[in-house]
């Protein structure tokens, strides 16, 4: 992959090794988990990582509490699927269109809510999520409402000359695809937050009035961040539809928004690694607790509350504390580099 070559050329040696390890782990995972149940969970993990990264870019980096991430996820899923089914658009074009539409919806909401901050934006985005869910539910001629859309095809096979055909009905290949995109988005966001853009966003998040007095166009940057984050949710939605094969509006309720928020918070808001760990932990943990039935979501709620109360930096903060206790030198994590 070309992105790998780019990474290896990046100046930070330690980060380069970590990314290489991540690539190897992603490559090995489907070989370790052979049964279809855990392979499906791997794909769900990768989708959730993508969603959580996008949400954290809006929340942690641009400081906008978005409770409507489920709406952008749903818009991406439905837009790409409907383009494929109703208009016969090829998958990858529909994928791009879904991403673009989600991003545009996010930018529109952000532009609309630009005068609003904190709680008002939270409620406005919550309202937006309710509206989108209700539209999906009630626009039956388009979305088939609660009956749902069935038999959605996986992404088309890739046939490279001289190689066996790569079919995405094979969960291992699907995982490589989604995880590959998640990885790509991670690298993209990583470059973005380390660039002056990241500092601009941090300045706006910490003190909007001061940032504006330095001549920063706060509106434009907030809209940009919201658009980026929701476009990622759109991509996740397109992958979700083509992986699961069915779409029902109830996959995109506000509960899903809260779940994603939980992943970001538990992992560590305002860091890049945090949402990744948060998404993995909060996808895998409920599966491990499946034997306990409804108790798993009680654990989920308790984890979210306790993390906010006692460990507001999430897993990333916990790791940093553990490192300091064990006597390692502080390693430049994403949050460390930002501060």
């Amino acid at each position, binding site marked *: 992959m070309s992105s790998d070559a780019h990474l290896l050329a990046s100046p930070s040696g330690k980060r380069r090794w970590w990314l290489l390890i991540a690539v190897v782990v992603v490559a090995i995972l489907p070989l370790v988990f052979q049964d279809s149940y855990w392979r499906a969970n791997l794909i769900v993990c990768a989708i959730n990582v993508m969603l959580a990264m996008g949400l954290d870019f809006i929340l942690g980096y641009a400081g906008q*509490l978005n409770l409507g991430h489920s709406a952008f996820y749903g818009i991406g899923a439905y837009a790409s699927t409907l383009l494929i089914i109703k208009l016969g658009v090829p998958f990858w074009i529909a994928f791009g269109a879904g991403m673009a539409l989600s991003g545009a919806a996010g930018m529109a909401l952000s532009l*609309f*809510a630009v*005068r*609003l901050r*904190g*709680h*008002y934006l*939270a*409620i*406005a985005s*919550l*309202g*937006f999520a*309710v*509206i989108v869910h*209700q*539209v999906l*539910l*009630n626009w039956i001629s388009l979305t088939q409402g609660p009956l749902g859309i069935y038999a959605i095809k996986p992404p088309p096979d890739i046939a490279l000359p001289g190689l066996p055909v790569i079919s995405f009905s094979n969960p291992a290949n699907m995982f490589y695809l989604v995880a590959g995109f998640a990885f790509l988005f991670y690298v993209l966001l990583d470059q973005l937050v380390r660039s002056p853009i990241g500092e601009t966003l941090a300045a706006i998040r910490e003190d909007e*009035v001061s940032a504006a007095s330095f001549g920063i166009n706060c509106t434009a940057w907030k809209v940009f961040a919201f658009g980026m984050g929701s476009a990622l949710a759109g991509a996740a939605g397109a992958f979700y539809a083509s992986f699961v094969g069915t779409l029902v509006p109830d996959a995109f309720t*506000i509960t899903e928004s*809260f779940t994603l*928020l*939980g992943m970001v*918070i538990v992992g560590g808001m305002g860091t890049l690694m945090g949402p990744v760990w948060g998404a993995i932990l909060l996808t895998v943990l409920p599966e491990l607790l499946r034997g306990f*039935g*409804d*108790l798993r*979501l*009680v654990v*989920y*709620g*308790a*984890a*979210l*509350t*306790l*993390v*906010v*109360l006692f460990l*507001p930096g999430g897993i990333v903060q916990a790791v940093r504390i553990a490192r300091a206790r064990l006597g390692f030198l502080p390693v430049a994590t994403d949050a460390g580099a930002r501060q």
Partner: protein
Amino acid sequence: MLTVALQQGINGIVFGSLYVLVALGLTLIYGVLVQINFAHADIVTIGAFAAYFFTFVFGGNYLASIGIALMVGAALGWLVNAAIFAPLRERGSELLPLIATIGVSILLQNAMLLWFGPIPYAFDSPYSNKVIRLWGGMFITWQNLIIIVVSALTIALLYAFMKFTMMGKALRAVAQDRETAGLMGINPNQLIMLTFVIASALAGMGGAMLGPILVLTPFAGTSVIVKAFAIVIIGGFGNVEGTIIAGLAVGLIESFATQLVNPGLTDIVVFTLLLLMLAVRPTGLIAEEREENV
């Protein structure tokens, strides 16, 4: 035609006054603390279940069960403040308490799901089937009459408390300027606690009255709370009069939208109204001056 409209009007006022009860709690807390309590929804649900169990398991009187739900709500409000808002107050973050209460909400909903199960409870209030006939074929059930009367009395009492008692004045003083109020010998922490207890008591009793007219599941409060948020914003965050007007208006709009358009579209109508309000007049119907710290 007119009677149909009036009948829908009665239904709208019934739901509207319950929305007001729930939304008033949110707006009181916001007024004093500038914080949102997401677990408010679950206090409504727990109030409904408390009333249900009191009436059907312990054989109590339905009207008394409203009082029980009020007390349960008050206790939960105290707990939520002591466990979440008080410890987080020092950190001064706008968003952390909100996120923490989302966690509490997920926790409570699923704990209820664990204990009470997903199947809706048939909360048949003894007053639901007794009908008072009005003119022109219109009617009102005793249950709805109880809802309107109890809500109106409660709201009037709260209003009088806020306007005329020393404690109510102190509460408004804390809402206006916590530090100065502290200098005048008011203990802000006690008053914040009081606000939570009152707000949650309203939610609890709202739940007891909503129980018989909603589908009572562990998630019943959620559908009410998203509307309550819309009402609070439409009325102006922290504004009691605005909340009352907006709550009744949303109840009526919902009722007429159900009749005229399509029951599935009521949420879309309400939330489009919310977004329009935010675009045109983010301060709500009745604007309240709030200084911004720059």
